[in-house]
């Protein structure tokens, strides 16, 4: 019964979104009228080029020679031994150029921008990883790049701000609202509506108005396609579980998507539990939010009873967002994927654990997935296999970790 349900959900999700961008009741296109035509134009270009062998060949070539793909699938033996349960494999997206999975998507969108004749790209960023990835591809393609970043995040992520400026991008501080990622997204949408003729908006996650959730997913599924081949090569079988952190959810969808049709592969998306769900200070819309409409799509949101979006909290700036990609909302409701939370302190412990046992310093975002993996693996036997998406490297978080521990660097 359970199995049939997941198989049905997988078959459905394979055909999603529908032509207007719906994943069941979620997704869609909720924007002001001015943006409807540019979104139609983007959708037409995306639909055309995703079937164009030349475009796909260029994308593949860039992923290989510029991003450094395929990223390894690494058996974390010492970590697995210490936990004493399932064997844990890490999908090493941290080894990509610029240090995270974000670059897969920005390369894809920049190639699309080039074909659409757009000379200017804009992006929103929270921790700065998507901003850096956007500034990077803009530098490579000789495009003007403007990155919107909450003033609060600029303060927290000074190194990434400087990195973007070195790459030639203009970083615009956003002073409205809570001065974090959601406000940066609002400001990027305002820029786009104003400069729509020459500007391509590179959204960094699987959220936003159609076609962004589907398009970003398609650019990120290289993660899961590689992982599938690699795990079969190394172990001779499919994994029992996949684990990935979920902010907007692009690294998770990228890993999950090629496995949706494998009902025996359990999918776990891990949201930021912040100080704990019971405190209300978290960023876990799937686990503790409700359905609503924000940033162009219907999805689970952190909102109050009046429908105002509420401020989120996470140790990890990349997960500090009140919404989530609509396909995750759908996967949750359909039961195909499960969503759980990990608190700030659990994530921090997992950061140290992987650093000390494997010599790999994970991003605080990815540390959420690692913390849940440790919980999951402990209850599984030695023959079980878990693949975790190590979505980014932790260098950017060293200052945060030191501050939390009262250490002056």
């Amino acid at each position, binding site marked *: 019964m359970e199995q049939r349900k997941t198989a049905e959900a997988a078959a459905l999700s394979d055909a999603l979104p529908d032509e207007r961008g719906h994943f069941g009741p979620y997704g869609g296109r909720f924007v002001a009228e001015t943006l409807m035509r540019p979104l139609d134009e983007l959708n037409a270009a995306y639909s055309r080029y995703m079937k164009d062998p030349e475009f796909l060949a260029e994308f593949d070539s860039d992923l290989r020679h510029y991003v450094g793909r395929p990223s390894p699938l690494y058996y974390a033996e010492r970590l697995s031994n210490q936990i004493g349960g399932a064997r844990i494999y890490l999908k090493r997206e941290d080894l990509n150029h610029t240090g995270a999975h974000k670059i897969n998507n920005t390369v894809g969108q920049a190639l699309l921008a080039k074909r659409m004749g757009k000379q200017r790209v804009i992006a929103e960023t929270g921790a700065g990883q998507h901003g850096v990835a956007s500034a990077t591809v803009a530098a490579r393609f000789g495009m003007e790049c403007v990155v919107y970043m909450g003033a609060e995040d600029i303060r927290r992520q000074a190194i990434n701000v400087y990195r973007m400026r070195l790459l030639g991008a203009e970083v615009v501080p956003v002073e409205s609202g809570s001065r974090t990622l959601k406000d940066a997204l609002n400001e990027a949408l305002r820029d786009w509506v104003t400069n729509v003729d020459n500007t391509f908006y590179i959204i960094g996650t699987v959220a936003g108005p159609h076609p962004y959730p589907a398009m970003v997913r398609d650019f990120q599924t290289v993660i899961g396609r590689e992982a599938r081949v690699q795990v079969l090569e190394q172990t001779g079988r499919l994994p029992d579980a996949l684990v990935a952190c979920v902010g907007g959810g692009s690294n998770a969808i990228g890993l999950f998507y090629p496995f949706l049709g494998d009902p025996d592969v359990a999918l776990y998306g891990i949201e930021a539990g912040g100080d704990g769900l019971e405190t209300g200070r978290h960023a876990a819309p799937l686990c503790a939010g*409700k359905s609503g409409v*924000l940033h162009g799509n219907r999805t689970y*949101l952190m909102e109050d009873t009046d429908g105002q979006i509420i401020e989120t909290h996470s140790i990890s700036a990349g997960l500090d967002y009140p919404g989530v990609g609509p396909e995750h909302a759908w996967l949750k409701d359909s039961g195909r994927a499960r969503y759980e939370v990990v608190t700030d302190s659990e994530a921090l412990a997992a950061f140290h654990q992987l650093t000390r046992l494997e010599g790999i310093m994970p991003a605080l975002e990815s540390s959420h997935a690692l913390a849940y993996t440790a919980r999951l693996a402990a209850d599984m036997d030695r023959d079980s296999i878990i693949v975790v998406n190590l979505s980014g490297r932790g260098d950017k978080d060293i200052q945060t970790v030191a501050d939390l521990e009262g250490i002056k660097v």
Partner: protein
Amino acid sequence: MSRIKARFRELGEQQRKALIPYVTAGDPQPDVTVPLLHALVAAGADLIEIGVPFSDPMADGPVIQAACERALVHHVSLHDVLDMVREFRSTDATTPVILMGYLNPIEVWGYEGFARGADEAGVDGVLTVDMPPEEADNLIQALHARSLDAIFLLAPTSSEERMRKISQMASGFIYYVSFKGVTGANRLDVDAVADKLGEIRGCTDLPLGVGFGIRDPESAAQVARVADAVVVGSALVGKVAGLVDHPEAIPAELAATVAAMRAAIDLQSTT
């Protein structure tokens, strides 16, 4: 006949153009709003647009964003906004009131419950900025069941096909966004607006309102020459921002601005 339709018919018979001021409900504090609405009507407003505060006003420029933030300090909710409309209605039975805002507060309330509440409070039309017609079937149904007008936007980027489709779904009037950009920007090009309004008139008999970028009596009069209604938002809300420490002065100050625009609009229609 709806109040909006009746008002436009009356204006048409007098060969006058409508002036529609916009203010954000509860800005800078809740007790200012109802007296302000009455003052705007006394100064010559034909219809009133009330902004429902939202935490993430993506289509608005800095002036209206700040207004939303000021109102949300007081937790002004959609329910509170309807209470303000109810109070306004108790002494003004004729001026049409349009709610303008974003979808999520309505989504959270539920379309039918909201439509009932809005109707009972005396609202006449609803403009939901981030609700394009493609997604609007259920909301329109709920609004129409309560005889509320569903007002939609058209923009410089709207194709003829969309103009036709939106004209069929809209009632009351159509709100034409004068330029590509956010509210309050300084990008108004009246000739371009006139051209596009000509195209839209080929698709609909509904009155056409124009908003975004109308900042003074002169631009109001220019737009009134080509449109049926002139919507003024940021130019008024910006004055509220300057008077947060003197809220008692807000109704008179905004009324003076509206009166000047009213005079300029009426002057152009007689010349």
